[in-house]
């Protein structure tokens, strides 16, 4: 049987990207082949290398090609605060926004029994050992505000209490520039319950 044309293979391969359907995949393929071969080569090289070499940081389990990621190996970061997030993308979001100076722990998921994800699948024993070694003084739970995120936060808070580590949860509230009338009831009731003195 003849090999499928390379062009078809390329279009098919591009469809694995999120948000890319057949039409966009075709556009991308033609763009690379007709207008930007150099860019395409570079993409291929970097993509290949990243797929081969990027793994998880031994400490925080975010994505990195090194043993320890840039954040964990940075001596200026404060090892006494540990921010627990669900995904490497969350690390990036907090890094870009928050002026946070501590370290991270990436769960790469959340507790979700129906999906078959329990404490063991999340590797929470690793976090438990880290909390037990006494260097961490505060855990900031920055899991999502879904029910699974809440359950995960509660589970980790019990672990942290057992190791006598202070636990905080990120605040819920009204988005900046938001109007109360458009905010959903759940967020609003959390925002009222978590109000602050002025």
């Amino acid at each position, binding site marked *: 049987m003849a090999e499928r044309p390379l062009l078809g293979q390329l279009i098919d391969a591009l469809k694995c990207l*999120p*948000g890319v359907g057949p039409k966009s995949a075709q556009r991308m393929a033609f763009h690379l082949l007709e207008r930007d071969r150099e860019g395409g080569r570079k993409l291929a090289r970097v993509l290949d290398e990243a797929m081969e070499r990027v793994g998880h940081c031994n400490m925080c389990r975010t994505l990195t090609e090194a043993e320890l990621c840039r954040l964990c190996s940075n001596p200026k970061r404060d090892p006494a605060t540990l921010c627990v997030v669900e995904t490497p993308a969350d690390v990036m979001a907090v890094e870009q926004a928050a002026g946070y100076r501590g370290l991270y722990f990436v769960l790469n998921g959340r*507790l979700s*029994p*129906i*999906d*078959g*994800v*329990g*404490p*063991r699948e999340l590797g929470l024993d690793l976090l438990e050992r880290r909390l037990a070694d006494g260097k961490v003084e505060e855990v900031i739970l920055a899991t999502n505000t*879904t*029910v699974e995120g*809440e*359950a995960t936060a*509660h*589970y980790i808070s*019990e*672990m942290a209490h*057992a190791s006598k580590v202070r636990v905080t949860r990120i605040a819920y509230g009204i988005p900046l520039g938001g109007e109360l009338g458009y905010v*959903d*009831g*759940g*967020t609003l*009731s959390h925002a009222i319950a978590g109000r602050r003195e002025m």
Partner: protein
Amino acid sequence: MERDILHSAFILHRRPYSNTSLLLELFTPRLGRLPALAKGVLGGKRNNSAALQPFQPLLVRLAGRGEVRVLAVGEADGEALPLKARGLYCGFYLNELLMRLLGRDDPHPRLYQHYFEALGALSRGIDELEPVLRRFEIALLRELGYQPEFDRLADGSAPDPQGRYAYRLEEGLAPAQLHDPGAVSGRTLQALCGEVDFGDHERREARRLMRGILSHYLGGRPLKSRELFQSRIGNK
């Protein structure tokens, strides 16, 4: 027409589907458990992923004819049940039970009512979690037609609170052999029927009894949400 009806519903489970959609597993009184696709609800203009969470009473309107319906309308119907801490684990447990034991498109309006009441009880207090779970387990088994009877023995006589009894699947209760490790007291049976309150001892026995019965119907693969309780208890 069916598509104009608003159904009460709870979400048992949700997972992301393509970029901005959610694939929901709904539990409704009149349609039973069924999958539905909520299109474009993550981010963007139709963002109402906050309402589309488990333990939030919903009003939904469903469209489409395939096995997976399309969620045309999904709005909060009152406040979400504020499950906290272990109550939240219990909520997951109930959802997992329903996902595992209740087939799709098999309506059980009474079971829906039991579920609603159980969530309400779980969200109110932390002391009485276990009896709530036991009551729901029994209601679920009854609705599914398994008929576990705890108020009389297989021969029709009433259990004695001081006696020890063993439960045989498909048969029912019989006086236990001496030193039967699976045996429970008559008082535990009374507690399961709601005639007396659960003490610590009854709680433990009832948990073991129901776990044994359920594991038969679950076909060997244990419930994942139990792990949430187990590993922490070991460390406390």
